[in-house]
């Protein structure tokens, strides 16, 4: 008997740009020197996109929580999660869905502010955005604001006209809503 041999090309999986979306990855890791390097190194080595990465101590002694913002389609995200899980010092990894997650970023903005008018306007903006003035100089004001990255972007846009001298952003950190934990 003879089986026919036909070469049907397997469907090419082309990722359209709109299938790539921002992912919030939360990882519980050992709080040890080198862990950040392992994680960051993994992203560059495997060509994963990384928008921001934040890390700080967690609720458990000796463990830190990392929040990574990365762009990619589902397949890339699956690889990121699996590869992160392979790192011995990474204990848990979760892709947080945007709706069920509280995301916050802290930003410090130092703006040029000499005239009375610009100073009062900037202070008003700070109030509207629930920010605070944390430092005042003869020619500058420094604002502190927390919120979603979008909210911070909006404030920065408004302040551009006054002459922003310096911006320091932490990058977003995130936690899931409700009682579930990772």
């Amino acid at each position, binding site marked *: *008997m003879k089986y026919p*041999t036909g070469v049907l090309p397997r*469907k090419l999986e082309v990722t359209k740009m709109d299938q790539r979306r921002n992912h919030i990855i939360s990882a519980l890791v050992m709080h040890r020197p080198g862990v950040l390097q392992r994680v960051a190194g993994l992203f560059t080595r495997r060509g994963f996109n990384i928008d921001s990465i934040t890390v700080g101590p967690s609720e458990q002694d000796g463990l830190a929580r990392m929040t990574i913002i990365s762009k990619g389609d589902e*397949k890339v995200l699956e690889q990121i999660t699996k590869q992160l899980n392979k790192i*011995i*010092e990474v*204990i848990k990894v979760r892709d947080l869905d945007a709706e069920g997650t509280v995301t916050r970023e802290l930003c410090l903005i130092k703006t040029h502010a000499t005239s009375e008018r610009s100073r009062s306007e900037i202070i008003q903006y700070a109030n509207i955005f629930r920010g605070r003035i944390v430092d005042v100089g003869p020619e500058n004001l420094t604002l502190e604001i927390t919120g979603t990255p979008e909210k911070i972007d909006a404030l920065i846009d408004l302040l551009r006209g006054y002459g922003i001298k310096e911006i320091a952003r932490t990058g977003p950190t995130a936690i899931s809503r409700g009682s579930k934990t990772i």
Partner: protein
Amino acid sequence: MKGSQAIIKSLTDEGVDVVFGYPGGVLLPLYDVIYDSDLKHILVRHEQCAAHAADGYARASGKVGVCIGTSGPGATNLVTGIATAYMDSAPIVALAGQVGTSMIGNDAFQEVDTIGITMPISKHNYQAMDSSEIPQMIRSSFYIARTGRPGPVVVDLPKDVQKGELDYPENITIDLPGYKPTKKGHPLQVKKASELILKSKKPVILAGGGIIHSESSEELQHLSELIGAPVTTTLMGKGCFPEDHPLALGMLGMHGRVASNMIVDECDCLIAVGCRFSDRTTGDVTKFAPNAKVIHIDVDPAEIGKNVAVDLPIVGDAKIILSHLVRVISQTKDQGKPDWVDYVKSFRASCLPRLSFDDVPLKPQQVIKEISEAVTDDTILTTDVGQNQMWMAHYFTSRNPRKFISSGGLGTMGFGFPSAMGAKVAMPDNDAVAVCGDGGFLMVCQDLATVKEYDIPVVVCVLDNRYLGMVAQWQKLFYDERISHTKLKAMPDFVKLAESFGINGYRVERPGEMKETLQEALKSGEPSLIDVMIDPDEILPMVPPGCGITEIVGEYKVERENPNEIPYRRSAQETGGD
């Protein structure tokens, strides 16, 4: 006790009987303990060989191999060997010396960031900053190296940590909350897989190195015979299924057997076990097994779906999952597919490669045929990288796991000889034969001194074509025969080279001599080198990069009267390269 004593005690407690190493300034405390310890130390002549030897030791025995190098250049010389082990999932522990903790970061003499350098090429690495950390670190290193998907672990040992005092704990507990490899496959997935297999008409098994690591050759054979699925292997899987079994297809891929490549193309269910679908195995993935549902069994979840879309994944240990599958399928009726098996057998027979040639200079096929005749099922064969490797992979018939050892993932020239040395040390009752290229062997030939000094009777067969043959082959096929820097114009007389180390050298030039000489060398029980003068123009048929695995170029010589009947024979001109 001192840190250095703790290192040796930890190694001994792990059952280590031999280490391959090379000392240096920061390792003085450790070597001072090795001086009167029972642990056997083999002084290699280049740290790369220490790492490859540990790797060969591990692959041949299944135990963890250990190598040692000093800080700085010692550690960087180990790097190639560590990366080689990483790519092929070989369990080794590499101990590297480091400058004293107070000097780290100062660009001290012979300081290098070993942790940073080895991070992307090791399964894990540790730097001991206090002597008291040593026992648990070394215990964890061995545990990580050999469990789950095996791999190399590096331990960086600063000089003062070796010298410091510690109380060696009575009990060492491994505390790795982030490391829990899955062993048992999910029962539902196994059930679904069995259904897919039973429903299929043309199943094929693709077996990779995972079968060897998990020691599941028997389970694999059960499954294959039970469901009537032929078995093809990756390079790393070679030997996990007897290649003279009627259901064996041989290796798959760029340099695979025609039968393997064609049958995989035709199958409707591909059961891939312990393999990672490397580009050398699949060719163009969009044309790979186009009609098949793919079942992928692997201990490393990250391999699933990485290169090839998978219809049914099962994560876990291949041995456990395969026996589970066999159990489930045995309870059903009509598991076999006699028509498919008949078809596969006759197709396989129609394209067995031709091995016998009486040409001078020798054809590599004939050389490998004679090597097969000279060795037994217990002989461990290692290969170097290049044509020599692919000829061996293609033409040599392996029957047992852990008897064919080759650098697959990294493709490291120079691997063949030192890995054979390590294999022979691990398995002193088995013969060990390294089949090398002339280029690759020259990269590590200094270690002939090691096999002489420690009387490690490996036999090195140098397939001498005076070319970096594999690269020259690509230049011939795809770069208009522009042989750019692949002709080895000045080369040593390998027989005299061997003799200068006090090693027996032989030269083989005519049909019949290879078998005779190899048998004589093996019988001598001494380390030997055989310089085999082969035809520099012989090339291996291959699948050009970017093509599907059925698109073979180069003349495929088959064992039958009319080679013209073989389908898919294409000339080099038809398919462009790169």
